[in-house]
């Protein structure tokens, strides 16, 4: 709904910003990188899972090599039975109102997040306890190898019982110990933040940050007009670099692929009322044929202009993904054989049929996303010679949730620094739960491997199970098994940044559109006078 008013509002906002920027020298940065959270800036509801939580601090930080680094916690350990985490907190951390952050706030955050049911998965948490002001213990029901991800991503909020503590309004009025504090948030338009004077870390180089929540077109126009310092741009537009800006590429594990509904349509509906199932995509041969027909190299070249690479799984190149999960494609002859064997006959109208059912289904994508639109249109064209008609259909996200989520093939994007995402995507426990396993994928053998990975004694052992879930020699969620997705490409995140802005050394971004570039915000410097 924000799109129609964006050009006018953007113009007004930018006029004000340009007028004030001269007086402020370069104390202020204007960023159009997206990432506005629907649920507000509340870590308990999911804020901060991608990129920096900005207002809050996490217990640990992820280094560029993905290893945990100290942040609020200076020391941490896991008991031998792998059921209790003990963390020692730094003693100089303060919230933006000047009050100290203690172990009581940490314990409250974890206990409350477990009850809140947000994106942070704390189902393994039995209890969080403050031993003293600077020591906290987190007790688990059962060993959970990915629990450390919550220490890396969950921003700490003030205890509800204290002054300015957590409340239902927290998402709109966040108070944390992070480098910045909120000044103003006009939903759908802009977010203004300023330095937190009580931040324990190095002082950020910029006093004020303005995040403009504009669409792709408006962001690109603003970049060309010199009215933003950093703009996130879709890969398809990445060659249109304005003269005064540099192109910044951030490697990522952010991928795009087609999620197939796995159940036949038998009239069932999800709790939301959305219909479940699709008779065409529920057929393994259709999914295998599409995976064989899609030319991922060409997709990366055409839809991403080379700012990306082929994808074969949800976590290509990461230790919990099987490197053998590759496919030489396109293999149209083999795809046709698969379809013929399965009884899909090609008729004169160019379409395949099985028992009168045409091989036709919608491929839905969010209409505001250029990259997904291009991927949908090109991949539909690639499978057309097989006699499979994927109908690219652009919809608003709420329409997708209401109607398409469980019955259409969806062009989704995922990609995480944690194998926890694999668990969400493919475990039957998460079938129909939000976007993750919205295709109702369920395979007992995969579940067994995923559960074994979570209970593993070491990261190495867990990785073996994660990889086995993808393909264990007889079964798996991947290309050689159920082909539950047709993974298409891994993106490079592309930004246009002012040539005077030194972004520093960027890590590898997870999914999260433009926001992950904020991860090393404290390293950013202005290099011009």
């Amino acid at each position, binding site marked *: 709904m924000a799109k*129609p008013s964006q050009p006018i509002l953007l113009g007004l906002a930018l006029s004000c910003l340009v007028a004030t920027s001269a007086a402020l020298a370069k104390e202020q940065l204007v960023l159009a990188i997206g990432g506005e959270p629907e649920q507000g800036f509340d870590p308990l509801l999911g804020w901060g899972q991608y990129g920096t939580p900005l207002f809050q601090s996490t217990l640990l930080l992820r280094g560029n090599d993905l290893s945990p680094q100290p942040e609020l916690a200076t020391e941490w350990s896991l008991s031998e039975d792998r059921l209790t985490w003990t963390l020692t907190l730094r003693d100089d951390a303060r919230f933006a109102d000047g009050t100290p952050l203690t172990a009581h706030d940490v314990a409250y955050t974890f206990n409350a997040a477990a009850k809140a049911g947000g994106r942070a998965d704390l189902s393994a948490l039995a209890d969080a306890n403050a031993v003293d002001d600077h020591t906290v213990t987190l007790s688990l029901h059962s060993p959970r190898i990915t629990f450390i991800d919550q220490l890396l991503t969950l921003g700490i909020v003030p205890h509800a019982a204290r002054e300015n503590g957590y409340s239902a309004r927290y998402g709109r009025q966040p108070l944390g110990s992070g480098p910045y504090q909120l000044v103003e948030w006009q939903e759908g338009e802009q977010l203004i933040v300023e330095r937190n004077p009580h931040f324990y870390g190095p002082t950020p180089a910029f006093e004020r940050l303005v995040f403009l929540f504009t669409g792709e077109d408006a962001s690109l126009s603003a970049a060309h007009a010199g009215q933003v310092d950093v703009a996130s741009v879709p890969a398809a537009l990445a060659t249109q670099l304005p003269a005064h800006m540099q192109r910044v590429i951030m490697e990522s594990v952010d991928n795009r692929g087609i999620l197939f509904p796995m159940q036949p349509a038998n009239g069932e509906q999800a709790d939301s009322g959305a219909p479940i199932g699709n008779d065409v995509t529920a057929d393994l041969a259709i999914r295998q044929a599409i995976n064989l027909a899609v030319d991922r190299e060409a997709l990366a070249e055409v839809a991403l202009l080379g700012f990306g690479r082929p994808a074969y799984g949800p976590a290509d190149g990461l230790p919990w993904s099987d490197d053998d999960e590759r496919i030489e494609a396109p293999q149209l002859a083999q795809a046709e054989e698969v379809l013929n064997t399965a009884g899909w006959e090609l008729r004169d109208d160019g379409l395949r049929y099985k028992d009168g059912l045409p091989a036709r289904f919608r491929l839905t994508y969010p209409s505001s996303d250029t990259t997904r639109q291009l991927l949908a249109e090109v991949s539909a064209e690639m499978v057309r010679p097989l006699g499979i008609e994927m109908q690219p259909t652009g919809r*608003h996200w709420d329409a997708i949730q209401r109607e398409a989520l469980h019955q259409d093939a969806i062009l989704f994007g995922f990609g995480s620094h944690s194998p926890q995402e694999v668990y969400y995507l493919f475990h039957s426990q998460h079938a129909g739960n939000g976007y993750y396993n919205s295709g109702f994928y369920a395979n007992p053998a995969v579940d067994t491997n995923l559960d074994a990975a979570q209970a593993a004694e070491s990261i190495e052992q867990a990785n073996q199970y994660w990889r086995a879930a993808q393909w264990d020699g007889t079964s798996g969620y991947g290309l050689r098994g159920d082909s539950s997705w047709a993974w298409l490409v891994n993106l490079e995140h592309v930004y246009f940044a002012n040539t005077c802005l030194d972004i520093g050394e960027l890590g590898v971004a997870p999914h999260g559109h433009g926001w992950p570039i904020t991860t090393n915000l404290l390293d950013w410097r202005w290099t011009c006078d």
Partner: protein
Amino acid sequence: MRHAQPRIRAAFSLAVTSLLVISLITSQWWLGDSPQQMQFDTRLAPPSVHHWFGTDALGRELWARTLAGLALSFWVGCLAALLSTLIALSLAALATLSRRLDALVSLLIDTLLSVPHLILLMLIAFALGGGTQAVIIAVAVTHWPSLARVLRAELLQLRQAPYVRISRALGKSRWFVLYRHLLPHLLPHCLVGGLLLFPHAILHEAALTFLGFGLSPSQPAIGVLLADAMRYLSGGYWWLGVFPGLGLLLMVLSFDRLSSHLRRAL
């Protein structure tokens, strides 16, 4: 043409519009899959002998997509204008049945005219989930008031005509009078009104789609082509916006001219 006789100008206008309509109606047969066919080695090619209007980011021929877009707009415009005219006619007829109904219809007309078109269009299209049907309904539901006001005034005037009063005095029912005596007089008004609505309808369809509330971005609608072109204009790919824009202008102008001539003639 400036000094040509009105009849010649009207004939010219009719010829251009007819040619356009025939090409649009038959386009789906002779265009085939051309609007969707991708040629990855000729992406964003400028206009040339081989690519008359140039190509888009996926190497699709823009002339084919422009024609397909105009054809789509034509059908959407036709249906929306027809539906809108039917709504206007029905409500105008309803207004003649009693004073209360007349007041109600007048209130409805005034209320709708007081709300900005585009906002109402967006709200309705969004509420209906977008897509072709939603656009047709949204355009139809928002474009009838002006025509309804004209038809209502005409009906009120006709109601006082001697033959209508005689018919009523002879005991004919209100429905009979409406059907036999009043509606036949309104057909020319409906024809001209519908034709005048048509350019509005297609412009608003294109606007809705351009703003992201209308047809799916995967359909080669004019609004979609223009919205796509916006992203590439800063890269110098002017043809992506110019040709679909000119096509839309030609269609709107030709129908507008034709309906103006028709209005004068009637």
